[in-house]
């Protein structure tokens, strides 16, 4: 996913001479192709995320299209006020790129788990919040955000995520993508955990449950039209994210559902409960332990259907 991002960034930098990339001293063996192609537009701010973020604002105010790049919470939470007061209040052309969504850096521990960033970023006015579900979505989202030219948070998997779309999808702001059709249950997923949602959806359909799967890379703007349609047509909406169940993608879906008068569906939220991830393990293990892997999605959906 991160390599798809860098490939796309290289393509964009070729056509846009204003495009600049600032790293917070991370991206070894990932950003080297950008540095080699555009050394004059590559800046290493050092291990200084507050500087990186405010500096991106200054560059954007002088006409640049700026990308800040770092891992997990470093480009978001470490410099939150710089994002709020500088980038977002001034509506600057800065895209904040975070690699390692959720448990992407599993065994490195809690400091490297991005599990509250979506909730916090989506609370900021002017901010677009995007977490693509596979490498294809990453390409489409990176291009779309560049056209947008305003504050954006692009939350990527660490790498090695499977391609779930057959080809490059047509992506639009506030629009989800259907991967599997279904009528009874709808799984809506945000971010690289789409691969788990995909497997869960296949298991449910194999059990004879008509289950749809949608990837919604944009938490903000949310595909409210789709949520409304699903709320009226399905009995159950299962929202899936590798993030706290508080305030993020599931929160955004729930907020919208709460205002619908004639909905049929209820929602269950798959994600990290209100806790820190303190157990040691790789991404697959932590998804399992914290009950957001495909089996957990499958089991929780089945359990909910049994009750209703």
């Amino acid at each position: 996913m991160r390599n798809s991002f860098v490939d796309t960034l290289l393509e964009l930098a070729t056509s846009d001479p204003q495009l600049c990339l600032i790293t917070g001293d991370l991206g070894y063996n990932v950003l080297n192709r950008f540095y080699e192609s555009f050394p004059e537009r590559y800046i290493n701010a050092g291990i200084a995320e507050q500087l990186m973020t405010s500096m991106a604002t200054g560059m954007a105010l002088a006409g640049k299209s700026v990308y800040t790049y770092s891992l997990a919470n470093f480009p978001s939470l470490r410099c939150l006020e710089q994002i709020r007061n500088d980038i977002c209040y001034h509506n600057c052309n800065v895209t904040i790129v975070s690699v390692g969504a959720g448990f992407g850096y599993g065994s490195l521990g809690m400091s490297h788990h991005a599990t509250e960033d979506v909730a916090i970023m989506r609370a900021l006015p002017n901010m677009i919040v995007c977490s693509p579900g596979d490498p294809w979505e990453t390409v489409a989202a990176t291009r779309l955000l560049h056209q947008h030219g305003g504050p954006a948070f692009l939350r990527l998997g660490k790498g090695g995520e499977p391609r779930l779309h057959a080809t490059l999808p047509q992506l639009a702001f506030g629009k989800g993508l259907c991967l599997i059709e279904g009528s009874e249950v709808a799984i809506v997923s945000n971010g690289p955990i789409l691969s788990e949602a995909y497997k869960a959806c296949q298991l449910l359909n194999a059990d004879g449950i008509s289950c749809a799967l949608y990837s919604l890379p944009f938490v903000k703007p949310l595909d409210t039209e789709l949520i409304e349609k699903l709320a009226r047509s399905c009995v159950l909406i299962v929202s899936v994210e590798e993030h706290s169940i508080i305030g993020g993608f599931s929160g955004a879906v729930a907020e919208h559902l709460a205002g619908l008068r004639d909905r049929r569906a209820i929602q269950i939220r798959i994600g990290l409960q209100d806790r820190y991830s303190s157990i040691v393990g790789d991404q697959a293990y932590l998804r399992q332990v914290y009950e957001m892997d495909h089996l957990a999605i499958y089991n929780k959906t089945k359990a909910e259907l049994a009750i209703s």
Partner: protein
Amino acid sequence: MTSQEMAWKIRKHALSMTYRSGASHIGPALSIADIVAVLYSEVLKLNPKQPDWQDRDYFILSKGHAGIAVYAALALRGFFPEAELEHYYANGSNLCGHVSHKNVPGVELSTGSLGHGLAVGNGLALALRMDKRPNRVFVLLGDGECDEGSIWEAALFAGHHRLSNLVAIIDHNKMQAMGDCSSVANLEPFEDKWKAFNWRTKRVDGHQHDALRHALEPGLTQDSPTCIIADTIKGKGISFMENNLLWHYRNPSEQIVKQALEELEQGPNAQ
């Protein structure tokens, strides 16, 4: 308008604006009045009719709480009518207590939380240099503000990258919100710190216009950013406010403002 006249008018406006609005921060505004006046009357390349003129110099007030001095300078330079200053801090006004760019022509950056301005200045300076543009970037900081770690992130970067189009001016009045800088977190040796971060450093009397003018001249450095440590007096120009921390926050009463204005009535060259 000479810089002396502008400084005098900034002080008068600052007093009236603070009194009328019930706002605080008269002390810091008086502290930077001379620096702001020299910048806005003689140093900055500006076009009040076209605030986003691409050849302009950039000025950032990083210590946004002293924004009344900048609002007054902008009005005096014709960016917006002086009458608008009367609405400072009022419901529905564009002029809030910490300097804001929203609907205020001439303000480049909204600040208020300390420690942001220098790093934004780095970004401006870097982008201008990338584009081979001659514009300069000036950032006015507080000395207490230098407690913020983000200042030193920016100082390290600017020194390393030799951002010679960047000028930091420090309003060194030696006082911060809760006491003397020396008692809160001693900044000394202050000049040496900036030198150690590879900045060209000058120390001037922040109320002497000739000294400020000279220090702010372009072309003095080719290969390093400039830090001007301007020794100032909080509350400068009003005898009973000088070096008195009370006036960082206290809103002056009608009687106090009358007294203060009487002192200023002696004219722009009385200091």
